[in-house]
């Protein structure tokens, strides 16, 4: 069977599985829709959190980014896993004790202010949208390759699927579906990794393969990579802080991702679903353990893919080029503009002939190719397409294809290649549905029920929630077609925004009894405002990185510092929270005496 047939089979079967689970677990009341009952075991909740958490960015984009950046790719690994530690230690048990639906709920209650609640809802929606956009782009890439269509058509298909999918199941469905999705995505990630590691180094464990000698080469993989990189003019693979990724930027991006993790609303909401504070802690452990399985494997895939790509492309003629190159060429995610010698040159210098189409339209790319042909023939109207694309910053293949293409590069069986597509889809779907749920609960619960119509019936709230999901999917699809960057970069922006807005106010809300309403709101606005303007200015406005040379991905750290600074500076001038809030803080800090207070249903009804 061909790769395409296998893909249809796997995608069809896994998708059917998710829908069946969602249907079996379907619940019609709001409580079930937002936070599934209380009976989810910590390990299953951990697995669902891991699936929720590991998005298309983790699955499709991360190993690709490591493959391209080498050492600096580690900032994503450290950022996302290190953030989990902050989440588990600083937030999870306390928010679980608090026991309300959403993060804005906590902020609204703790700072006793609807203004704070609205600012938090706006932040949550903003962050979630940025993140969902990344997922849509990921789904689009999967479909574009396997249905052999343009990446934008892939995004349309993805939008339709996510929409049907997200409106069908409730949260109860989502938890168990996500458990299934975790298994699909982790198996799909590990299978090719093990196969490639065996093929290149003979080590069955990819993490050991990473440090092993290449079969038939007599040199270690990483040593060989450093050597090839030096020969072709790329920056070293293992040496840190070369080129644009200096120590400060790597540090800032890692820290922004860490603090942002702790502020991501769709991950936090997961901790409300376990039965008590102790289970929330165990759930955090299981989640990180399951996440680490993928995160520890990604560096191995990244290194093997880098080797396979350089080895498979550089110096080859049209006839010698591997099959996978041609399949991906159709998507526009990898382009070859020859200098006329007929041999492909993939280097880190001006002689590079490998590019990607990025945000350019099909017509623009065709024009560049045509001009390039004319230039090759020496016609005056021609233009060197390589220079054009290099100037547009489009050197090298699209990083997002690397994980999907790796099994093809290594010549693995067709069914493995197709299985990876199903895995990528599982990763994107699980995260997208989790996020859409946060967006809809933020609007339906925090705005509609708590502020607009406090008398709303469950039916009305559910209807608002579903409508919001519909609108959200369409907006996110639009963002997926016009993305402001690579999947994992888009996601990094979301984390930066979360770090700059939520993290300081939640942490201070738990660990300080002094911080009052006005300083917290001022801090949140200052943090997210600064970060959002800086990111937009850098990505669209062509700003230089004027804040200490920190790029848009790491700027969330500065926004977070600003948030802390504004909040703490203003605190002495404003009153401390009143007695009822003081009691609330003390009760959050205390795992004891929870009793019925731990029951989500009752705490919601009590409002």
């Amino acid at each position, binding site marked *: 069977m061909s790769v395409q047939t296998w893909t249809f089979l796997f995608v069809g079967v896994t998708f059917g599985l998710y829908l069946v689970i969602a249907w079996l677990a379907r619940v019609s009341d709001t409580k079930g829709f937002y936070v599934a009952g209380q009976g989810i075991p910590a390990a299953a909740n951990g697995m669902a959190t891991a699936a929720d958490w590991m998005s298309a960015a983790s699955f499709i984009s991360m190993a690709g980014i490591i493959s391209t950046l080498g050492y600096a790719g580690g900032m994503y690994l*450290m950022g996302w896993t*290190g953030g989990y530690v902050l989440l588990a230690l600083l937030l999870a048990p306390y928010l679980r004790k608090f026991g309300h639906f959403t993060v804005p709920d906590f902020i609204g209650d703790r700072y006793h202010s609807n203004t704070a609640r609205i600012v938090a809802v706006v932040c949550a929606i903003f962050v979630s949208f940025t993140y969902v956009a990344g997922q849509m782009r990921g789904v689009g890439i999967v479909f574009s390759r396997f249905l052999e269509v343009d990446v934008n058509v892939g995004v349309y298909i993805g939008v339709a699927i996510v929409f049907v999918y997200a409106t069908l199941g409730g949260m109860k469905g989502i938890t168990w579906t996500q458990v299934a999705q975790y298994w699909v995505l982790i198996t799909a990630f590990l299978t090719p990794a093990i196969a490639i590691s065996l093929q290149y180094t003979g080590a069955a464990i990819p993490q050991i393969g990473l440090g*092993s*000698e290449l079969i038939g080469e007599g040199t270690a993989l*990483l040593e060989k990579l450093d050597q090839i990189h030096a020969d072709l003019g790329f920056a070293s693979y293992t040496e840190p802080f070369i080129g644009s990724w200096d120590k400060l930027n790597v540090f800032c991006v890692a820290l922004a991702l860490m603090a942002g993790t702790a502020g991501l609303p769709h991950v936090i909401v997961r901790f409300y679903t376990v039965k008590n504070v102790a289970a929330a802690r165990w759930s955090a452990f299981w989640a*990180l353990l399951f996440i680490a399985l993928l995160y520890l494997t990604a560096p191995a895939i990244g290194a093997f893919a880098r080797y396979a790509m350089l080895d498979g492309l550089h110096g080859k003629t049209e006839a010698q080029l591997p099959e996978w190159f041609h399949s991906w060429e159709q998507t526009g995610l990898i382009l070859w503009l020859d200098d006329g010698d007929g041999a492909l040159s993939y280097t880190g210098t001006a002689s590079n002939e490998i590019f990607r189409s990025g945000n350019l339209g099909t017509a623009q790319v065709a024009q560049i190719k045509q001009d390039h042909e004319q230039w090759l023939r020496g016609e005056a109207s021609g233009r060197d397409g390589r220079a054009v694309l290099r100037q547009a910053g489009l050197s090298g293949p699209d990083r997002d294809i690397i994980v999907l293409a790796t099994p093809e590069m290594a010549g693995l069986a067709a069914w493995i290649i197709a299985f990876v597509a199903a895995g990528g889809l599982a990763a994107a779907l699980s995260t997208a549905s989790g996020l859409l749920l946060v967006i809809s609960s933020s609007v339906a619960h925090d705005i509609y029920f708590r502020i607009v119509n406090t008398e709303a019936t469950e039916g009305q709230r559910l209807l608002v929630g579903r409508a919001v999901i519909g609108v959200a999917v369409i907006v996110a699809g639009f963002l997926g077609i016009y993305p402001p960057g690579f999947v994992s970069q888009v996601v990094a922006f979301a984390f930066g925004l979360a770090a700059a807005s939520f993290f300081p106010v939640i942490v201070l809300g738990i660990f300080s009894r002094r911080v009052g309403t006005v300083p917290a709101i001022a801090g949140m606005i200052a943090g997210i405002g600064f970060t959002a303007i800086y990111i937009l200015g850098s990505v669209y406005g062509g700003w230089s990185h004027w804040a200490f040379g920190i790029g848009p991905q790491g700027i969330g750290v500065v926004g977070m510092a600003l948030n802390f600074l504004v909040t703490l500076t203003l605190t002495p001038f404003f009153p401390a929270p009143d007695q009822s809030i003081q009691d609330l803080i003390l009760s959050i800090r205390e795992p004891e005496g929870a009793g019925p207070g731990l029951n989500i249903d009752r705490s919601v009804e009590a409002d």
Partner: protein
Amino acid sequence: MSDVADTRQKEAIDRYWKRNIITMVILLVIWAVAGLGAGILFADKLNAFSIGGIPLGFWFAQQGSILVFVMLILVYAIVLNRLDKRHHEELEAVRGAKA
């Protein structure tokens, strides 16, 4: 009698919170040293050494730090859940005295 019990209950809660904070700070220091320290700030220097064929700074950034993070949460869950249990027993004792 009730006043004494209230004071003792408050002391127990304060003691629990203090122990919680100490545990958390210790774990966060390890977190910072392994992730931000070994993985980033000292990565260039650590690359002079190697582990299993992988330069050490590079290894910390892409493997070691993650392993440490998983261990940290495991330790946190075990220590804190034990602390919770002890705290529960202390409170029970206080409540017993109250009754």
